[in-house]
């Protein structure tokens, strides 16, 4: 039997994508289709006192102009539905949608949108998340108690500007700090960043009878369907969500925005309506990564072993919490302020607050890039203050099987020590470097995804297999992974396995892409289905055989990694250059070798952007980096070569021992670079991005 997994994969959608034949949401057209444009608030916080659409309606080709009054009380969101489809009483950030137009052409729609006359009464706004919970802070959502909260009950809140958060405690904190020989405290700031996916958000919506069809860039079609059902007051079976190829997601496309207004426009006109978001709007309106202020306080004994840890994180949630799917309404792993270490006692206090900034949501490993930058800078600062080598300090503290982490979870398995010992050798750690150069490291962990799903598999009369799934592929290679798992189990050539993606009316319920879920969950479901086919065939069942493959992965398992960065810093200017980059990672069994490498390299570049240049700069709530000239992301000229070393013989809960890799590699880049700069010239930076002017300022004022 051939081992499918040793051969590099050929992407099932690869030919389509490289020839341009692949269709993305913006490529879909329908007969009689109208184009939508939106009216956005120029104010960060304002009451809407009057909307006059007379002039807009008079524009030739305009078929409908709708305002907040036409959609009230429809709000959308993944968990808390606090984001109005169009605002009717107040705008809460610059870019909040006030009205929508559907017209024969995009030009007519945009011309009409410019003629909608809105009268605002400006209100005091909050732009500093650290002040959002002040007693006299302006309140953004006076009616929050009435908002739908999906599949759970919302806890009462101490302040109306509190979106969510959690307080975690375990162990005896006071005793832990009392036992410490030294206690360290540092505060870090991380700015708001955007996913910068290539494909803009796009949607096409139409009615067939009382059934609404939605072609969307949303990566979790069933979740969108269920959210829309609540927003629109429609039964879920009357909503059919189609997600074609997704051109990059990085967490942002778990939340759909304009789709909701399109439903109202399609209903008002009886015509299909389409919108494609301009990239300037992407940067001003959509679901960014949270800016954060992170204060860490850690006690260590004389050997540097952690005795107690306190983390306080304030995330800037922006105007709406709609982008956050978890019940605590915080970035998913916001609570992991010192991840991957043995922590006998901890208290972590996370709050997400409302501000009049654009709404923040999920972005590749939500919460972890912020926390990892803080945690791994903090560890380096502790190491240097204690006179312990930074790698040695981490080796003394990384979690081993049976030990408790920052969240109070006991790890049953840990490759952390092995990652660090491999790292020591590969990085030539401790060897001398010329003046002006330095080596830095960061350690990181990411959970293996959890969830459950089902797929349909059919062994055809010709011996080939068809798999039907409701999962989408945002570029991670889901369909190829499913194909190869089935092929491997059944001893087939991969091209004998077809994977079909179905819409929400035809597929079995699926949680969608996200949370590092697809390989461990969908891979296991594919494996389960393949095993059932094998069993049925062994019993002599006649072809074709149809089975359902199901899997549920609830184990708390982590992958771990270490980055090593060598930099050369010019102490005259603060400019620095990365000379060497190493990633040692535990990814479990590899199913798609090309995709694994792509995810690790891509994760590195993604993290490098956040480390070196990315920041959605705002002034009085308005995004001033509103184009990809001002919002910098790395180009290949900015990216050094990355050496990758994968830990052999590791085992995860996914198919054949796979783990997850999509969100593993991006969070730890920033701290590794910051630590390298500190090692080279002694300049310690406490905020991202790590720019030459900050290095220079730190060199001049080492306080």
């Amino acid at each position: 039997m051939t081992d499918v997994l040793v051969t590099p994969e050929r992407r099932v959608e690869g030919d389509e994508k490289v020839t341009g034949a692949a269709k993305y949401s913006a490529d879909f057209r329908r007969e009689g289709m109208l184009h939508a444009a939106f009216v956005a608030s120029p104010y960060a916080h304002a009451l809407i006192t009057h909307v006059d659409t007379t002039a807009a309606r008079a524009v030739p080709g305009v078929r409908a102009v709708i305002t907040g009054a036409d959609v009230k009380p429809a709000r959308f969101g993944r968990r808390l539905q606090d984001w109005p489809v169009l605002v009717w009483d107040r705008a809460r950030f610059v870019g909040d949608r006030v009205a929508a137009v559907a017209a024969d052409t995009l030009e007519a729609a945009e011309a009409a949108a410019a003629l909608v006359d809105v009268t605002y009464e400006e209100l005091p706004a909050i732009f500093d998340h650290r002040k959002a919970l002040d007693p006299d802070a302006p309140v953004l959502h006076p009616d929050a108690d009435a908002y739908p909260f999906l599949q759970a009950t919302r806890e009462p809140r101490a302040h109306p500007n509190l979106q969510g958060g959690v307080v975690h405690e375990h162990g005896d904190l006071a005793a832990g700090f009392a036992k410490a020989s030294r206690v360290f405290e540092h505060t870090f700031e991380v700015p708001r960043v955007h996913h910068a996916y290539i494909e803009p958000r796009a949607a096409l919506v139409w009615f067939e009878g009382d059934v609404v069809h939605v072609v969307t860039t949303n990566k979790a079609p069933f979740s969108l369907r269920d959210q829309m059902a609540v927003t629109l007051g429609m039964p879920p079976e009357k909503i059919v969500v189609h997600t074609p190829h997704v051109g990059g997601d990085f967490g942002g496309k778990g939340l759909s925005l304009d789709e909701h207004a399109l439903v109202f426009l399609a209903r008002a006109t009886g015509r299909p309506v389409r919108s494609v978001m301009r990239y300037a709007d992407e940067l001003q309106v959509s679901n960014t990564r949270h800016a954060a202020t992170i204060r860490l306080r850690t006690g260590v004994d004389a050997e540097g072993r952690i005795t107690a840890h306190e983390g306080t994180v304030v995330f800037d949630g922006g105007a709406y919490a709609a982008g956050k799917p978890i019940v605590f309404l915080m970035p998913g792993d916001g609570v992991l302020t010192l991840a991957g270490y043995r922590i006998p006692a901890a208290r972590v206090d996370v709050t997400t607050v409302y501000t009049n900034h654009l709404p923040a949501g999920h972005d590749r490993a939500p919460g972890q890039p912020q926390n990892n930058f803080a945690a791994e800078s903090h560890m380096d600062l502790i190491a240097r203050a204690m006179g312990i080598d930074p790698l040695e300090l981490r080796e003394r503290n990384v979690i081993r099987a049976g030990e408790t982490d920052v969240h109070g979870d006991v790890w049953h398995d840990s490759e952390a020590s092995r990652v660090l010992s491999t790292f020591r050798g590969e990085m030539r750690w401790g060897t001398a470097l010329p003046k002006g150069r330095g080596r830095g490291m960061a350690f990181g962990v990411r959970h293996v995804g959890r969830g459950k799903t089902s797929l349909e598999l059919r062994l055809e009369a010709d011996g080939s297999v068809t798999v039907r799934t409701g999962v989408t592929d945002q570029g991670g290679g889901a369909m190829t992974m499913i194909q190869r798992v089935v092929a491997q189990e059944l001893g087939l050539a991969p091209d004998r396995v077809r994977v079909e993606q179905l819409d929400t009316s035809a597929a079995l319920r699926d949680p969608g892409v996200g949370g590092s879920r697809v390989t461990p969950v969908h891979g296991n479901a594919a494996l389960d289905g393949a095993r059932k086919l094998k069993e049925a065939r062994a019993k002599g069942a006649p072809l074709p055989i149809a089975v359902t493959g199901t899997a549920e992965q609830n184990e708390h398992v982590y992958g771990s990694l270490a980055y090593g960065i060598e930099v050369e810093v010019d102490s005259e200017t603060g400019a620095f250059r990365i000379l060497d980059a190493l990633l040692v990672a535990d990814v479990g069994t590899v199913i798609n070798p090309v995709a694994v490498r792509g995810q690790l390299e891509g994760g590195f570049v993604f993290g490098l952007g956040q480390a070196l240049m990315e920041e959605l700069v705002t002034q009085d709530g308005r995004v001033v980096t509103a184009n990809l000239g001002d919002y910098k992301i790395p180009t290949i000229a900015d990216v050094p070569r990355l050496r990758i070393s994968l830990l052999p013989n590791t085992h995860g809960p996914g198919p054949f021992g796979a783990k997850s890799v999509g969100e593993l590699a991006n969070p730890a880049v920033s701290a590794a670079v910051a630590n390298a700069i500190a090692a080279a010239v002694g300049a310690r930076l406490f905020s991202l991005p790590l720019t030459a002017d900050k290095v220079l300022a730190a060199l001049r004022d080492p306080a």
Partner: protein
Amino acid sequence: MKLAHTATIAAPADRIWAAVMDIPAAARCVPGVAAVTPVGPDRFKGQLLVQIGPVRLVLDGDIAVATRDDLAKRATLRADAKDSRLGGTVRASIDVSLTERAGACELRIESDVHIAGRIGEFGQPVIQRKSDQLLAQFTQCIARSAAA
């Protein structure tokens, strides 16, 4: 966005100040300004045409003199303008001051500009450059008319 411009003008302070505070006349010193007309005491209406790269903006708006001290030669102007074709608003608070030093005068214009809507999507460096250009031409023109 905060912008600051200074120009040294070799002319008597009173004449420069009079040239600056004659709003309709001074506005003609800004390239692209079409007729500025008074609509009330210390209130004016006007139009500014700006070409930024391939994009032409037509800003319709009001200018009001919020504070004015002719003895100290300080004034604050507020401008509110709207471009209805592209969609966007510009609000500016402009502090103008004139100080005499060593036989010449220094004219200082400090602006706090808020740009919203699509106009704000131009890169900040582009807006900064354009504003610098306009204000430089403005001060040169004021210097010429005060010297004349």
